[in-house]
């Protein structure tokens, strides 16, 4: 039996502060990256045996 999937802990103190700061300063990806994401998504969609 494999190790269980680890729980995500409650964030507190410095961890929470750093997390919030990064969230507020989030930098959007470029249009090129967005286009790449869509291209990869379409490739996966084509090979999937289930509806996406």
């Amino acid at each position, binding site marked *: *039996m*494999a*190790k269980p*999937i*680890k729980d*995500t*802990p*409650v*964030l*507190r*103190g*410095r*961890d*929470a502060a750093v*997390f*919030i700061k*990064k*969230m*507020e300063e*989030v*930098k*959007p*990806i470029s249009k090129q990256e*967005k286009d*790449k*994401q*869509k291209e*990869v*998504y379409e*490739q*996966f969609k*084509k*090979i*999937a*045996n*289930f509806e*996406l």
Partner: protein
Amino acid sequence: MSISELKLIRLEQNTEIKSFNSTDVDLNDFLFSDAKNYYSQLMAVTYLLEDKDKTVAYYSLLNDKITFEENQKGVRNRINRNIPFSKHMNYYPAMKIGRLVVSEEYSGKNIGSEILTFLKYLFTNNNRTGCRFIIVDAYNNERAIKFYQRNRFDFLTMEDEDKDTRLMYYDLMKN
């Protein structure tokens, strides 16, 4: 090798899992012993990338959330600033990657990054529920950590610095 040469299978109870070669016993165990149990208990869904006769890679997904301590100073105000009518929200919905692994044979062919790219788009553009973050529990070794950092994941906490695995996250607002 191109993704178009593979199949993406949603693992179900009757799915026959093709051979898979990882040097990590835990990752083999999870696929062959646990993945179907997680599925039958509605705890996680595993997806397989297959070629003609082998499992090339697999990943398992489950719902999760990032929660803040109730009295964390200022956090609730910050969270609620842009969410109308929310009163007591101290968490964000997230999706967790319970496992993500590429077989030894296909390692280094960018398949892991393509899976992450696909998931980032899927959970931003075609999601059935709200989801702000992708979380992953990464092996705490240079190769795995650098892989997720290259894919723009950050550490979630510094409390697991000396543990076997480290929680990392991707903010889907980047998309």
